[in-house]
């Protein structure tokens, strides 16, 4: 048992699923999961395994099929919509009709649970709206229309809206789905610092494994056989949990988890191996990418049956054949041409 902060949200024996007509389809069951304040928790799992269903069930947006979700010690099912909206905010990837609102107006919708019948904003509300925009780095776009934003800015505005809701828990369903790599890293780092600085429990689902493993404090890994492993990121990696995410793909020779890289990598066929080259190189980076080029082309780097590659720099590479013949190359591309 960890002795850190008590969890803000906890599930016990939770079963989730959906109604397919009159039939109930249970997707996962027996889930014991925890969310802690001040932590970024990342939900990983393959497509269609039920990540969104899990998020929506925990958020009380759809009914559970068994077990409980405890929020601040009370069952989520017992909360009214209004009460729940002060505890928990969500960011979906839904297309909205909000293009005709300014960013300021969009973020101010986050104050909905806190304002009165007409939704008037007082000074306190306005301050929180401005602070939320500043925290997500979107303040300079306050007067811009949502329709004019890039995908990354739009996502930041939606996160600012969730912040303005002032809930201890924020859940995000694939917040980085439509973003380029720079915006993905930016959004993920933003969520991590929000969890740290504001003590919020942030839960998000994503397919960006390498970024998740760098920034997540805790992981929920949905395995191929529909169990959820929950724990500290590094503990889960070292216990081999990540391999179970795509175990069937690994067996087919597809994606396998590379512990050193911290990401899923393509498993290259070894049976068509053309033989091997040894690499002699002092530059770690250079030798890494030379090995990458050789492996991709079906050579091994363990044996020197075909010769030795001596690399001084990226533009000074030599191949020494067993016959003693030496071929000089000025790029990896030339090297590949020489040895293929």
């Amino acid at each position: 048992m960890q002795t850190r902060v008590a969890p803000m949200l906890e599930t016990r024996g939770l079963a989730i699923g959906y109604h397919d007509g009159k039939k109930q389809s249970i997707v996962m069951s027996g889930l014991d999961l925890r969310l802690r304040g001040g932590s970024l928790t990342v939900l990983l799992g393959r497509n269609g395994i039920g990540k969104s269903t899990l998020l929506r069930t925990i958020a009380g947006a759809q009914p559970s099929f068994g077990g409980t979700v405890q929020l601040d010690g009370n069952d989520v099912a017992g909360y009214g919509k209004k009460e729940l909206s002060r505890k928990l905010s969500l960011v979906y990837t839904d297309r909205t009709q909000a293009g005709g609102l300014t960013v300021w107006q969009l973020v101010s919708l986050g104050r909905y649970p806190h304002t009165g019948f007409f939704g008037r904003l007082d000074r306190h509300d306005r301050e929180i709206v401005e602070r939320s925009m500043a925290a997500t780095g979107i303040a300079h776009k306050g007067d811009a229309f949502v329709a004019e934003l890039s995908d990354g800015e739009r996502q930041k505005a939606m996160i600012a809206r969730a912040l303005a809701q002032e809930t201890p828990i924020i859940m995000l369903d694939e917040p980085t789905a439509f973003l380029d790599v720079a915006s993905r890293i930016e959004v993920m780092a933003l969520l991590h610092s929000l969890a740290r600085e504001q003590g919020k429990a942030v839960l998000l689902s994503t397919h960006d494994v390498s970024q998740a493993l760098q920034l997540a404090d805790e992981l929920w890994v949905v395995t191929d056989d529909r169990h959820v492993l929950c724990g500290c990121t590094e503990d889960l990696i070292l216990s081999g949990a990540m391999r179970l995410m795509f175990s069937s793909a690994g067996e087919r020779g597809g994606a396998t988890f590379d512990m050193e890289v911290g990401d899923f990598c393509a498993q290259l066929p070894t049976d068509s191996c053309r033989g091997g080259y040894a690499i002699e190189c002092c530059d770690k980076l250079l030798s890494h990418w030379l090995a990458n080029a050789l492996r991709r082309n079906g050579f091994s780097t363990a044996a020197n049956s075909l010769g030795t590659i001596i690399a001084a720099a990226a533009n000074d590479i030599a191949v020494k054949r067993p016959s003693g013949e030496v071929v000089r190359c000025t790029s990896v591309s030339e090297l590949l041409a020489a040895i293929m």
Partner: protein
Amino acid sequence: MSEQGVNRRRSSTVIAILALSAVVLAVANLVIGSVDIPLGEVLNIVAGKGSESSSWELIVTQSRLPLVATAALSGAALSIAGLLLQTLFNNPLAGPSILGVSSGASLGVAVVMLALGGELGTLFGTTVGGYVSVMVGALAGATLILAALVFFSTLVRGATMLLIVGIMISYLASSAISLLNFFSTQEGVHSYVIWGLGNFSGVTLGNLPLFATVIVLALVWSLLLVKPLNALLLGSRYAETLGVNLRHTRNSLLLLTGILTATVTAFCGPIGFLGLVVPHIARLMLDSSDHNVLLPCTMLAGAVVALLCQLVSVLPTSVGIIPINAITPIVGVPIIIYVILNRKKIKYFN
């Protein structure tokens, strides 16, 4: 950051322009008609000072004032109904006529007029009870269609498909109306056809209080829904996470749309295009989807467009009056085509 300084100035300007246009068009409608009455006389009569000609006074007070009030209120009502449907179904091309709500109301009227009522003369136009029964019929028809739309919206994914379902429902309602006409008496059919052309002069001075009370109450009710309407711009899933009681809100919006559409349809006939077009006019003028300003502007713009159509309909005074439904598409279609062609550039579509 100054909160929306520019926007606020723009919306005040838009409201001022619309209000001024409404007043000018209202006065023009009092002056122009089968008999043109001098502006000074009209103003005297409206101010209660009377006129040198008692027939002018009669025309203005008994006929044109109720006409102007009916046109303005109907325009506002149908436009608000359109706006509520557009926000509720997350579809800027929704409207009471395109989704079949107007047809549903017409069917209700047809049932009362053709199947139950028989002759219009006894039922319609003379007694308040007659109007009430036509209104109830229209409301029942409109509500039926709205309930069907809600049912289909849970089954059909995608906003366009729901529009097509609405159009199909319209066809069904029209075919039911045709069947009713086929089996009805000649007088019934005649009065139904006249009613179906659309006409703001259907509300007499005696019936105006009833009509105006219902419409004004419904419009005030719509103003109370500004907060959830803005939340619905994010889509219903987001609105729910903000604490919006979805079922309650949706039922209120649908009932409100039904009351607005049914009341206007019962008195003035099925009037097309206003509900679809006017919210676009308001949004384009305001450059905003914020319901705080969009609702009042849509009401005003609806009144302005309806008064304009009414004015055009009486312009060829010697020949007679053009049916309103011959004019609304001429105003509406170009705007809708413009909106569709420019949807990539129009903010509220993105």
